[in-house]
């Protein structure tokens, strides 16, 4: 039983890590198309290592927007990793110096895989496998995508722009369809998050709508503390 959940955590982690890691191709291509150098694209993937923030910065560079606003928007998007870290701190049980490398892995995908596991041991396994496979793939494909951009004129031709949202959908799906008393409130929270983000999009800079999606959760928690 224990080996089954552990190997399923490894399978989940490898699946997510390799598949999402491939979209580093899209980032490398987008970054260089936006006017970042190959080195700048690679430094972002190595050290920022959080896709949405990286895409946000590249988008602002491409649009010729203010770099300060671009950096601020990228950081605002990164705030959700702080919330994931809060959630994962107990689960991962990373203390002292071990927190330093583990922190780099606290992102959407690793959090989703870790939280989808039935117990702490497989959660830690899922986190580490996702982190390792995603980190390696994401950085390798960033380099390839950046170098190959002159050949691949438009990643949209290959439908790569649909991979990002499809990834998050696939990650969220089991939590929204589970046979669980909590499922109904999770669905409501997801729907509210979508509504708020889309409603805020025309009125706030890129990056902010996704953050505002946390507000309905705040309202729910304050209304019915448990």
């Amino acid at each position, binding site marked *: 039983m224990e080996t089954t959940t552990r190997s399923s955590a490894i399978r989940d982690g490898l699946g997510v890590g390799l598949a999402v890691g491939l979209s580093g191709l899209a980032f490398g291509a987008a970054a260089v198309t936006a006017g970042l150098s190959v080195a700048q694209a690679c430094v972002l993937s190595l050290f920022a290592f959080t896709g949405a923030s990286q895409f946000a910065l590249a988008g602002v560079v491409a649009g010729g927007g203010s770099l300060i606003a671009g950096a601020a928007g990228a950081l605002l998007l990164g705030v959700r990793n702080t919330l994931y*870290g809060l959630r994962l701190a107990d689960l991962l049980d990373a203390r002292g110096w071990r927190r330093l490398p583990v922190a780099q892995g606290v992102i959407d995908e690793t959090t989703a895989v870790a939280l989808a596991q039935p117990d702490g041991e497989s959660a830690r396994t899922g986190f580490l496998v996702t982190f390792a496979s995603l980190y390696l793939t994401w950085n390798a494909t960033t380099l390839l995508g950046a170098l190959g951009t002159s050949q691949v004129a438009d990643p949209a031709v290959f*439908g790569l722009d649909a*991979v990002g949202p499809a990834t998050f959908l696939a990650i969220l799906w089991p939590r929204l369809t589970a046979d669980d008393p909590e499922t109904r409130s*999770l669905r409501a929270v997801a729907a509210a998050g979508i509504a708020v983000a889309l409603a805020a999009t025309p009125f706030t800079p890129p990056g902010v709508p*996704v953050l505002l*999606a946390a507000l309905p959760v705040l309202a729910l928690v304050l209304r019915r*503390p448990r």
Partner: protein
Amino acid sequence: MSVWQAVVAVCLGCYALKLAGLSAPRRVLDHPGVRRFAALVPVALLAALIAVQAFTHGQALHLDWPRTAGLGAAVVALLLRAPFLVVLAAAAAVTALLRLAGL
């Protein structure tokens, strides 16, 4: 601000934000409201991320038909309990084919 300065600022800031969450005092997590908030908030943010990546372009709401159909294909694959990679491949393939067809 040069592009390199922006890149370094984003790298340092993003790492600091991740570390801050892991390092927050345990007291913070002992509060049931914080616990519930931290449990629910990824669902809201991930859902919002899907909507924003799929249905907006900059600050405009924007329906890209091939991409939306690609997401539809992902939903069908998920309903059929397809493996993760098949879900992503279905989304990319349908989007690419519709673009090829000139939609």
